């Protein structure tokens, strides 16, 4: 894969060739709530580019500012500083009803005094579209989300998944330039959520509309997105394709937040380009990727995924570190083996092979192409 650290578009997940037309451009946007002493900074000079036809996800724990950013694009909040451009036009200070974007709310916010089709028509009616077009679009939307049979139901007679689909149809009906989705799957149970993930991806492909999706669920983000922005405490830490975020986390927070990962202390020696010489606890040495070229020599944190490791005999030449099997956690398709190193650190190895007995000494092979030196 492309070497992220050397790419000219570093930190955006975009290669020169992949660049499309900017649909949303968030330019150094700061949002503060409250005034004076009590002011809380929800977003701290955040910049992000979202392309046309892209499925873009804002991922982060609660309170990281992802929903605030979405609400700024929708127009429910106004930025304290900075600009928001939609398809080249500054919209940061327009009221929501003047922005060609629509939102799928976390609570769906379906109008309880209207039927399913009345809900879907609402946006078209407000835009004063001709009756024939409203009829036609409403029918097309009902079939897009497979709700034709329930067109005249009241929304409180629908299940959670059905309400979800009506909310989607209602937001897609006016053909917005951007569809904003605020944790729309969080109220659904696991099975339904998986189905809806596929459904959302299908809708995005079929409509060609730019989706901006907010979630705290890293698996959801990796499954659906073209690109993901990982946020923390009002900042965007890393933007990239799911694979890039997963395999080449730039920061310790990103590595920790996404998937299972081992983070251990090591010592960084010589640095050449995007790679550096790392000495592991126990003395073994390997060449690892640097998440940032500014990392200086000395004590660092390195990260590697449990599924990239392999258990080997303690005297095997491939063993990068040596320790004792402390615990084995079985999870169906394999087991997580917890290996306690001599310096007290525990490394988790995911394996489906046969495993040595508890307390047995074992070696762990850490392939160097899967090791990343992190910035804190």
């Amino acid at each position, binding site marked *: 894969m492309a070497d992220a650290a050397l790419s000219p578009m570093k930190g955006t997940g975009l290669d020169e060739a992949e660049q499309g037309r900017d649909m949303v451009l968030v330019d150094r946007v700061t949002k503060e709530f409250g005034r004076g002493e009590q002011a809380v900074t929800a977003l701290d000079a955040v910049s992000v580019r979202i392309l046309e036809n892209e499925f873009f996800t804002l991922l982060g724990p609660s309170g990281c500012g992802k929903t605030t950013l979405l609400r700024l694009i929708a127009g429910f909040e106004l930025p304290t500083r900075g600009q928001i451009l939609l398809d080249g036009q500054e919209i940061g200070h327009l009221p929501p*009803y003047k922005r060609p974007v629509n939102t799928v709310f976390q609570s769906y*916010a379906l109008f309880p005094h209207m039927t399913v089709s009345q809900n879907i028509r609402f946006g078209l009616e407000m835009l004063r579209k001709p009756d024939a077009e409203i009829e036609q679009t409403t029918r097309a939307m009902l079939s897009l989300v497979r709700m034709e049979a329930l067109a005249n139901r009241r929304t409180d007679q629908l299940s959670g998944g059905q309400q979800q689909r009506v909310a989607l149809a209602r937001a897609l009906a006016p053909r917005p330039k951007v569809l904003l989705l605020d944790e729309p799957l969080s109220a659904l149970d696991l099975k339904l959520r998986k189905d809806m993930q596929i459904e959302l991806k299908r809708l995005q492909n079929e409509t060609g509309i730019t989706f901006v999706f907010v979630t705290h669920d890293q698996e959801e983000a990796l499954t659906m997105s073209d690109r993901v922005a990982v946020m923390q405490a009002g900042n965007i830490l890393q933007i990239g394709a799911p694979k890039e975020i997963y395999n080449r986390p730039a920061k310790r927070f990103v590595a920790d937040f996404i998937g299972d990962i081992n983070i251990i202390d090591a010592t960084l020696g010589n640095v050449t380009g995007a790679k550096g010489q790392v000495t592991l606890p126990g003395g073994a040495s390997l060449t690892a990727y640097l998440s940032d070229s500014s990392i200086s020599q000395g004590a660092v944190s390195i990260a590697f995924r449990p599924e990239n490791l392999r258990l080997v005999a303690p005297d095997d030449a491939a063993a990068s570190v040596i320790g004792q099997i402390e615990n084995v956690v079985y999870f169906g398709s394999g087991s997580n083996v917890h290996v306690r190193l001599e310096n007290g650190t525990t490394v988790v190895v995911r394996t489906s092979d046969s495993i040595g007995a508890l307390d047995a000494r074992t070696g762990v092979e850490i392939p160097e192409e899967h090791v990343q030196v992190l910035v804190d």
Partner: protein
Amino acid sequence: MVDLSFRRRRMQDLRKQPGFDQIAIACMFVLYAPIVVLVVFSFNDNRSVVRWTEFSFRWYAAAFGNDGIRNATLVSFQVAAFATFFSVIFATMAALATTRTPAFRGQTAAYAIINQPLMVPEIVTAVATLSFFAILKRLTGVTGIGYLMVAHTVFCIPFAYMPIRARLEDMNLSLEQAAADLYATPLRVFWRVTLPLLLPGIFAGAMLAFVVSLDDVIITLLVAGPGETTLPIYILGQIRRGITPEINAVSTLLLGLTLIFVTLFFFLGRKRT
């Protein structure tokens, strides 16, 4: 498990406290026995309101045939209808302004001012209104039932305000945001989303305002001019000359009407989004 059984035990305990039943029955008796007596004797075929003889509708017939009662009822309904209509409009505007705007300086003061008629002794409001209207009448030369209607509107506002505001606070703000997101201007958001969803609250507020206006004595007594006698004032006047079962009959009808309104209020208030 432990927690649950503990809570259940406590709930049972409350009702098993010694004297619980007796106190409850005593309260119910004091509250409702007089009303039961009033209703029973309205059907008494006798001039007495303490000695039962035979069942009859004669006092209802007498009440319906009484011009004084008919006129007073008409005045009462006119005043109540006017006061209800306008107090609901003002209360709705006040409720929107206190729930659908960002918190503003003096919000607590605004609540207090809106609810003021509930807290100031009614006799004070009545005397103040009387002298204020006297000045207005002298300055403008205008007289009439309008003054009484305005006075009723004013004290009905806080009663109409309460259920409307409660309803607005219950209503999810994201519905209005969703409408704005779907290109509805603020005015269209109000007509298409806020108002339809607010209607149960508005009806409840209207019921309450109507009953309160129908019921009022003190302010009406001081403000009402000649020919503006409302039903409670008429009843009060009759009682001075001794209670007759005719008054019982009128009171029973008023009670029946109030019950209908309060029941409607209860059911409308209970219907949730």
